[in-house]
């Protein structure tokens, strides 16, 4: 088990303007219920995201893209390495080793996470789900409800659906509700895991515009898209992940061309 | 703990316990046991002090506790007044009085103001008591929590911790169900802001007389072997919610047929024709507040001494 990076180095890794600095991130899964075998999902990843930058992770499915996002969001425990975050207060923290309670508080305030894997809360009206995200950001209840209305309109969720329980919505609608919740107010760091995969073309375009707009507001975005077109449209950098490692990191056009072999699931 | 009693061979019991008075029904040392218990009762107002209650020539439940307290207090130069349901001439009061006078050789009195020790069952005299007087109330059930919780250990814990929430819940339920607190006599009271007591089955009418009283009030339960007290000038409040005033027994328009009083505790005497004749329960007070020209009953003036 590598000596844990002291917070001090992270300080160096996270100069002003840089929001996220992943250093030597590895993630293993030990499946006791099978026979205790170990799957090495990430084998040492280094990655940064600056303020206002949109880094898109590309690569074949199963390469560890979603795993990386979940380690950043701390849904997965990091096996080794550090996930440095410079918060809006300028403090530098390591999301990998931070105590649970602090992570819970920080997530609410600073990190947006939109993923199709998120299970919608049972028996919760749409407006309530989005407003909860606002409250977690620190808004008062009234303010949060207003912000939720704005966010929902922005992703084209009709007012008639607001009191409806999210669980009964279609995949696309749920995804848009998640996006509304994740972006109710510009988070410090936005994690997007296939945010538009289930959307029809019209909604897809409006969501992509929304994401693009966030970047201009200084939000650091780390995303996973299978949709190359979206990557080209949004990403300021593309990181190709293969076999749990970073295979390429650079300008979207160059990287995509060089890795045209990327299978793109339409 | 060695005892020197071994040196007492030559001293007869009499010197120790005083000469057995010919009519003695309660030995001197038992009086001292009651006195010691009463000292604690006065020092811890409202706490039921356990004491070595002994059987008396009256049955348990008929005033054996009150008798022991009175006999422990009364002296030959005292006057005793004994009433039952407010009456000196009640058969039970008469029996107790002659036992006390017989034993203590004290004077007997029916006028409340002239009595040093007043033993009573279920009533507090109408005449306000004075400094130096002692009221002894006979108590059938000393434990106010008996109807609230069954376990005696839990009752003791509630008293020890001053945790009377369950009692208040009963009052709440009572009001909710009946619109009024339906607890009649023996209304639970808070003494000195600390202990809830059963004031003995006096009517609610008498409960306010216990508050800030000039006299010492001694409550003695012979059968259940508990004695407790309310020292003079001690706060005694009936348990009621702030916004549910404590009401006393009152019948509109009822007045005593003998003395005309309408602000003393009256009892209804049913007539054959279905009407009710109201009379004072405190017979002595009543006899002293009659209009002089009351012709209906010839007042024989001097009351028997």
């Amino acid at each position: 088990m590598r000596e844990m990076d002291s917070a001090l180095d992270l300080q160096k890794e996270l100069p002003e303007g840089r929001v996220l600095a992943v250093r030597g991130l590895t993630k293993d899964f030990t499946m006791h219920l099978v026979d205790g075998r170990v799957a090495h999902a990430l084998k040492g990843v280094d990655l940064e995201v600056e303020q206002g930058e949109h880094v898109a992770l590309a690569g074949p499915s199963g390469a560890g893209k979603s795993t990386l996002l979940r380690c950043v969001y701390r849904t997965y425990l990091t096996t080794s390495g550090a996930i440095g975050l410079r918060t809006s207060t300028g403090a530098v923290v390591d999301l990998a080793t931070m105590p649970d309670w602090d992570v819970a508080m920080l997530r609410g305030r600073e990190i947006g996470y939109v993923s199709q894997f998120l299970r919608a809360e049972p028996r919760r009206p749409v407006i309530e789900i989005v407003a909860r995200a606002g409250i977690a950001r620190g808004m008062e209840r009234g303010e949060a409800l207003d912000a939720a209305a704005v966010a929902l309109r922005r992703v084209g969720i009709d007012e008639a659906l607001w009191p409806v329980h999210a669980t009964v919505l279609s995949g696309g609608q749920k995804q848009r509700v998640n996006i509304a919740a994740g972006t109710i107010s510009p988070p410090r760091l936005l994690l997007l895991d296939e945010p538009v995969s289930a959307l029809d073309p019209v909604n897809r375009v409006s969501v992509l515009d929304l994401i693009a707009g966030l970047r201009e507001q200084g939000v650091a975005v780390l995303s996973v898209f299978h949709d190359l077109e979206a990557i080209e449209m949004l990403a300021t950098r593309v990181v190709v992940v293969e076999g749990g490692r970073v295979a390429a990191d650079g300008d979207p056009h160059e990287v995509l061309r060089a890795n045209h072999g990327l299978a793109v699931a339409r | 703990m060695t005892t020197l009693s071994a040196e007492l061979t030559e001293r007869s019991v009499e010197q120790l316990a005083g000469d057995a008075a010919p009519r003695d029904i309660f030995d001197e040392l038992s009086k001292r046991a009651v006195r010691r218990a009463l000292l604690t009762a006065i020092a811890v107002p409202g706490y039921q002090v356990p004491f070595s209650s002994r059987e008396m020539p009256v049955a348990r439940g008929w005033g054996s506790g009150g008798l022991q307290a009175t006999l422990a207090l009364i002296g030959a130069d005292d006057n005793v007044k004994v009433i039952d349901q407010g009456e000196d001439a009640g058969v039970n009061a008469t029996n107790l009085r002659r036992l006390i006078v017989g034993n203590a050789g004290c004077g007997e009195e029916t006028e409340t103001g002239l009595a040093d020790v007043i033993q009573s069952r279920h009533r507090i005299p109408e005449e306000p008591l004075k400094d130096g007087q002692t009221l002894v109330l006979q108590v059938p059930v000393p434990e106010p929590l008996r109807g609230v919780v069954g376990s005696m250990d839990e009752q003791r814990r509630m008293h020890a911790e001053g945790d009377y929430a369950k009692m208040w819940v009963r009052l709440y339920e009572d009001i909710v169900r009946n619109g009024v607190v339906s607890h009649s006599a023996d209304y639970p009271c808070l003494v000195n802001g600390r202990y809830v007591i059963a004031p003995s089955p006096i009517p609610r009418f008498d409960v306010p007389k216990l508050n800030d009283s000039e006299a010492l009030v001694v409550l003695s339960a012979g059968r259940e072997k508990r004695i407790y007290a309310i020292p003079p000038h001690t706060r005694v409040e009936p348990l009621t919610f702030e916004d549910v005033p404590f009401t006393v027994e009152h019948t509109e328009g009822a007045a005593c047929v003998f003395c005309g009083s309408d602000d003393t505790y009256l009892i209804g005497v049913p007539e054959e024709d279905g009407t009710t004749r109201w009379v004072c329960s405190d017979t002595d007070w009543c006899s002293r507040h009659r209009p002089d020209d009351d012709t209906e009953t010839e007042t024989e003036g001097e009351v028997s001494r």
Partner: protein
Amino acid sequence: MSLTLHERAQYAGAPLASPAPAPAWTLSVRGLGKIYGDTSEESIAGTGPEFGTAVSPNTGAIVAAWGVDLDVAPGEALGVIGESGSGKSTVLRCIAGDEPATAGEMLFTDHGGSTERLDQLSPTERRRMRISDISVVYQDPALGLTMDVSAGGNVADPLTAAGWRNFGRIRSRATELLQRTEVPIARMDHPVKAFSGGMKQRVQIAKSLANDPSLLLLDEPTTGLDASVAAGVLDLMRGLLEETNVAAIVVSHDFSVIEMLTTRVIVMQHGRVVEAGLTDQLLEDPQHPYSQQLVAAARG
């Protein structure tokens, strides 16, 4: 089994170096233990997850819980999950004061900021805490309510214990709380023994909130209720936890309850804490074999 970088104190129940600095915990528990029978050191050995039993081979004593650490902050709900016999309810009863702990320190800070060592309080003081500082909602309503007393009367109990002496105000506070927990006001004066299981839990919840406690302990609040009733009670509970700043500990064997109400959770097996983590992390990335077993059973 290779331990991740996070072989930190939270894993395998080793005590944290010091209470996490960040928040002023409502409750901080260190080394909580409860042994039924011979409470000497000898009883500990041979018990715990590694030995698959809580019964001490040496002394036959039952080490229901040992070395349990947990913290819960105001406004947060901490989950405690494990199968029956794991010691989760024992931990809750020791915190509630229903049972004296054999070992451990319990530091309690109410929302006024005053701090007490619960494990050093006398039974009398412990009972006084239960009036307006720590409330419990029991799985069996009979433990939390007086069955012959009305719903309103049961809510009035902690109010009168806290010194409320105005009937009107008590009644309106009881009405407000019962309305908040969706108990039909028309029935507030009926004895609770006539209420359904779900309704009894709602009365219990109303009673538990009567004096704005700093810590709310929920012992399997919806176990034994049929699904739709349980759902209603859970929604109510979720709403209340979000509205108030109360710290809560939710004991359950049911992951859906834990997932819905809590942000963090500890997993207990044979009296020990085998894992602690964020609720979503435990569901998505359980570390300890037993945790994986529980998640697999719950999630399939």
